[in-house]
């Protein structure tokens, strides 16, 4: 039912004036947010683009025009490419793996298992733990020699690994920790979506002899696809947090095997105080994330199935 027009009892004010008043009120309500949005989200981005064409040093008021020099430097910077590669490797493997784990957990818990609340909390609690605490505990878990993970490997008769001290294993080690930390969050979001899937759909499929794998792939996944899509985006945004883990666990090492773009920006801007070049790297990080999200919107986003459609 459409809302009745609000004005019949009010004294006759011209509709144009009413509209203007409403617009003024709206801008006044948006003002507090807009001030901070402008000052701490959009101004920094514009400024970062401006800085990237200049030679800017932290705390030095003098700025020199460089043109594209920072960008050409980027092309020749092997460490930049390594950090970009590490970032891509981390995001592209961690996000889907965490989501698959989350989906399987959610499907298992959706079947009204007894002790469901306990399971749910057991998988979710890592989200509550500060990244610095999580990172530290995992440094301990991965410790060579006395760390429990290595002890477990020995007990199973497998060779011990140096994990965070081995340039081949350091990044995968951080990825495993991230999956532990975020799967529970994604699981909760997917659980909420699964609750909306009508149960008789599964029942019909089961009676028709459709096996569990096909039920998952052909019924569950399409029906929760809008949520899956949303979780992918959230996952990509959360993957920025790898800065905390790298800072706490490895400081980018060994041999820059865990140096990622956020950390490289930090190194360049704060340790070498080269704000101009650091801004250039920051801009490529933004392009990378926006590009990834755009790509996902064009591929996955197109295939999302909304319930009730066709």
């Amino acid at each position: 039912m459409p809302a009745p027009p609000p004005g019949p009892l009010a004294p006759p004010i011209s509709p144009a004036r009413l509209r203007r008043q409403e617009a003024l009120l709206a801008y006044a309500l948006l003002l507090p947010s807009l001030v901070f949005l402008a000052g701490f989200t959009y101004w920094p981005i514009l400024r970062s683009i401006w800085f990237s064409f200049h030679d800017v040093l932290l705390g030095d008021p003098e700025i020199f025009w460089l043109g594209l020099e920072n960008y050409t430097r980027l092309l020749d910077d092997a460490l930049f490419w390594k950090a970009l590669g590490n970032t891509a490797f981390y995001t592209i493997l961690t996000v889907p793996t965490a989501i698959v784990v989350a989906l399987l957990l959610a499907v298992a818990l959706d079947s009204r298992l007894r002790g469901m609340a306990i399971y749910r909390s057991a998988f979710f609690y890592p989200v509550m733990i500060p990244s610095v605490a999580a990172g530290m505990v995992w440094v301990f878990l991965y410790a060579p020699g006395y760390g429990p993970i290595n002890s477990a490997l020995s007990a199973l008769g497998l060779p011990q690994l140096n994990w965070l001290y081995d340039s081949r294993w350091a990044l995968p080690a951080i990825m495993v920790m991230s999956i532990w930390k975020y799967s529970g969050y994604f699981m909760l979001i997917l659980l909420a979506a699964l609750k909306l899937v009508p149960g008789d759909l599964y029942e019909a499929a089961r009676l028709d002899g459709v096996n569990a794998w096909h039920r998952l792939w052909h019924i569950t996944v399409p029906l929760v696809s809008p949520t899956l899509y949303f979780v992918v985006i959230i996952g990509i945004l959360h993957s920025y947090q790898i800065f905390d883990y790298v800072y706490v666990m490895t400081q980018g090492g060994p041999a820059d095997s865990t140096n990622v773009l956020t950390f490289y920006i930090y190194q360049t801007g704060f340790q070498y105080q080269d704000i101009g070049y650091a801004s250039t790297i920051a801009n490529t990080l933004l392009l990378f994330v926006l590009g990834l999200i755009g790509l996902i919107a064009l591929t996955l986003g197109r295939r999302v199935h909304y319930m009730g459609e066709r």
Partner: protein
Amino acid sequence: MQGLSPLAPAPLWRRLRAGWLHLVMAPLALLWMSPLIWIVLTSLKTKTEVFDPQAGFLPESFRFANYPATLTVAPFDTYLLNSVLVTGAILACQLVTITLAAYAFARLEFPGKKLLFGLFLLQIMFPIYAIFLTNFVTLRELGLINSLPAMVVPFIASGYGTFMLRQSFRQVPADLADAARLDGCGHMATLWHVYLPLVKPTLIAFAIISVVTHWNDYMWPLLVTNSDGVRTLPIGLGLLAKADSGADWTRLMAGTMIVVSPLLILFVIFQRRFIDSFMHTGVK
């Protein structure tokens, strides 16, 4: 499974299936819990036990003395106070800004609405991790580095919170608001008396997510603080880790427990609310 047909031979296969699931899920849950169990156990061990491969999984005797010992090495009370002040200030400011903005987007018409809403939404993609560098420069110019406000101001506007609340405002029946308007309530009075009471669950959900995020935040406070007077709990823990660097895990794990427990205790008490808040960030 809801909607079971009465013909299905439910009890037996369901019990079998549940048994199977427990067999898989229980060890998995234990695996997930193991880092936390490890923190607790280590925080109660002696230093030598940690490095002794012959020592058992459990500590010989529970050394609760590790906790008071940890509290004396760093000003944890100051860190705690700062964490409370920063998290509280962020939440209070956010609740004001998102309420006002969400109302404008949900119930008012004005030129440029779509564009402005787009700007709010786009902010979600630019968390502080992506734009910390120039924000740091700005705060330095404002002379705010190493102060509590430095940890608050970048987070006062929340595109995400505005979006969440706008969705809830739009579900409030228009008739209710119109009735209030006819009774002579202005927009602000309607917002306060009609809208806000009805969207309380959304406000609580947003509050929980905001508190968890900023209570645990590490990168930004790390960059903008350089003295104990303004440091928050996660930063204090990071410093302790640096000082101990693998030498004293018992103290470090006791410190971790101290930093982790406030939220975990709240989580255990208000489990339903926490779960619901995070659960419904994805739907609607």
